[in-house]
């Protein structure tokens, strides 16, 4: 594994390390500066790749065994005592098994606990549906005080981690299993919690995405430009909550067609968060949500599942073409609609 020091982890690391491995390294850097930082896990130190942290700060790792409710309860107690706990386990267990501890012990008390949820969505596809989590974004964003971030790749994971230390209150960062493609070439693209990143500018349609779909949407936009002459705006909505309303409203008025793409149930996640903003604006917009159509996910390798649920490059291209073909009354004068 490549040596990672200070802030020199960037491109080559992201290409050789999984999101979760980068998490371990960045956490080491952060912990060097902040003695309040501790890492908690529930028999998943290996799977969540906090091994490097364990080597560097063995006394600052707390493994509670396979007991996720206890895990989050302990994290809440440690935060109350003045520590800064980073808790990692699979998203299914962080979002469902220990939900009440996350909600009542952590969010209700508005504690500084940072949750690093690995294996989100269908990224552990072959494990079967018990190990998928296509509900996590919906669940977490419905918790008051919670901030929800879905990084596009390893680079963005590192940015999110550093940003969340300064960001008050509970933060949920959703990662994949680590075999996702890398989108960013460097970390200085202006990451800020709550601010969407414009990956490509465009005027015909906006694709709003998060997580692994960012890479695919960016690819799709290039191909759609070449093949269809389309100008596709791509927004990386890495922060689902608080969501970047201004970026969504600009997309509504400037492109008037919005496609959301997420590795999640179409109910309650990114698409719903975007729809809320559109609906409240009173402005019309052709709109489609791509994700799992309210079903339990199939078994299979993630790439096959991304393709099946239209979350990959080809799927996004298909959906963009569909949405562009849809009848939509484009009224030039928004004012008389409001």
């Amino acid at each position, binding site marked *: 594994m490549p040596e990672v020091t200070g802030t020199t982890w960037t491109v080559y690391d992201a290409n050789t390390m999984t999101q979760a491995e980068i998490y371990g390294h960045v956490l080491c850097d952060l912990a060097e500066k902040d003695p309040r930082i501790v890492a908690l*896990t*529930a*028999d*998943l*130190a*290996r*799977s969540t790749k906090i091994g490097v942290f364990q080597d560097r700060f063995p006394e600052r790792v707390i*493994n*509670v*065994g*396979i*007991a996720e*409710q*206890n895990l989050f309860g302990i994290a809440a107690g440690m935060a109350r005592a003045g520590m800064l706990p980073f808790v990692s386990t699979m998203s*299914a*267990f962080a979002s*469902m*098994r220990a939900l009440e501890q996350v909600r009542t012990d952590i969010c209700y008390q508005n504690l500084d606990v940072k949750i690093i949820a690995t294996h989100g969505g269908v990224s552990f596809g*072959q*494990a*079967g*549906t*018990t*190990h998928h989590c296509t509900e996590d974004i919906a669940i977490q964003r419905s918790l008051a005080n919670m901030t929800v971030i879905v990084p596009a790749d390893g680079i963005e994971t590192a940015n999110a981690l550093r940003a969340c230390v300064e960001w008050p209150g509970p933060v949920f960062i959703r990662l994949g299993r680590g075999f996702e493609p890398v989108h960013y070439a460097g970390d200085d693209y202006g990451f800020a919690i709550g601010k969407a990143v414009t990956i490509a500018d465009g005027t015909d349609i906006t694709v709003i995405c998060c997580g692994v779909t960012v890479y695919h949407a960016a690819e799709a936009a290039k191909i759609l430009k070449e093949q269809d002459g389309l100008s596709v705006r791509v927004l990386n909505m890495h922060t689902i909550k608080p969501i970047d309303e201004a970026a969504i409203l600009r997309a509504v008025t400037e492109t008037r067609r919005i496609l959301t793409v997420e590795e999640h149930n179409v109910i309650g996640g990114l698409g719903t968060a975007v729809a809320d903003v559109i609906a409240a604006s009173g402005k019309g917009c052709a709109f489609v949500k791509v994700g799992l159509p309210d079903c339990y996910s*199939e*078994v*299979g*390798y993630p790439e*096959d*599942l991304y393709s*099946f649920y239209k979350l990959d490059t080809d799927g996004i291209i298909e959906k963009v073409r569909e949405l562009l073909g849809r009848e939509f009354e484009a009224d030039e004068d928004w004012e008389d609609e409001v």
Partner: protein
Amino acid sequence: MPLSAEEIATLQAKARDLRCDMIDVTVWAGGAHIGGALSMTDVLTALYYKYLRVRPEEPDWPGRDRFVMSKGHGGVGLAAVLADRGYFSKDLLHEFNHFKSPFGMHLDGNKVLGVDASTGSLGHGLSMAVGMAMGARFLTQPWRTYCLLGDGECDEGSVWEAAMAACHFKLDSLTAIVDRNHMMIDGPTEEVMHLEPFADKWRAFGWVVREIDGHDYTQIGEAIEFAQATREKPVVIIADTVKGKGVDFMENQVQWHYGSMDSDLAARAKASIQRLAAEVQHA
């Protein structure tokens, strides 16, 4: 009635073949929880080839004994057994983990015949087993319910909530078996989270405890028959086992909790299984 010498020899031979099947599936699946599959094989063999009253040709037979694989990552091991018992064709095992396959590493009870509960998230199975045993009581059915747990899994508080309920409701048709292989993902159970004194914990929750060698068929048979005969209380069988049992390079190796193999390594694994089985037969 204690198992006869012939019965034991037959079960041992069966377990040897099943272990080899599990190695094959691990190759086909591109990886599997093989360590914990091999540790529980003898218990599963005793259940599926001697004690469980099931009808593979009629998987939904209402009177069948129920089996809950609470350590749901034992799916690869269980699937090999179910295929061999004829619930479905062994050819289907090639589809493990493939796109839209009924077989993910954690078995889906709605898709795989013979699976009584969909498991995979640890600490759920014993509660479902309690529910099944209660169902038998309400419906005045004679079936028994067996639940196989991992030892690491017993860290989950929900296991103990179920344990308390099983005793409170005097569920003597329920038998829990713990695959006590002393390991979990991050290391030995006693290093990650102390379980001992483990038997005392179950006793304190009102269970009758049998501690056995989980690879010794005489002891496995005796314990299951004891559980069947026990009244008013649930019985837990703590089966002391070796994670990766039968494969020399996997035994007690924590990194073989989950692993993948190419065909060369699989051949080595199977040779080891054959060698060990031959030694046991001669002993």
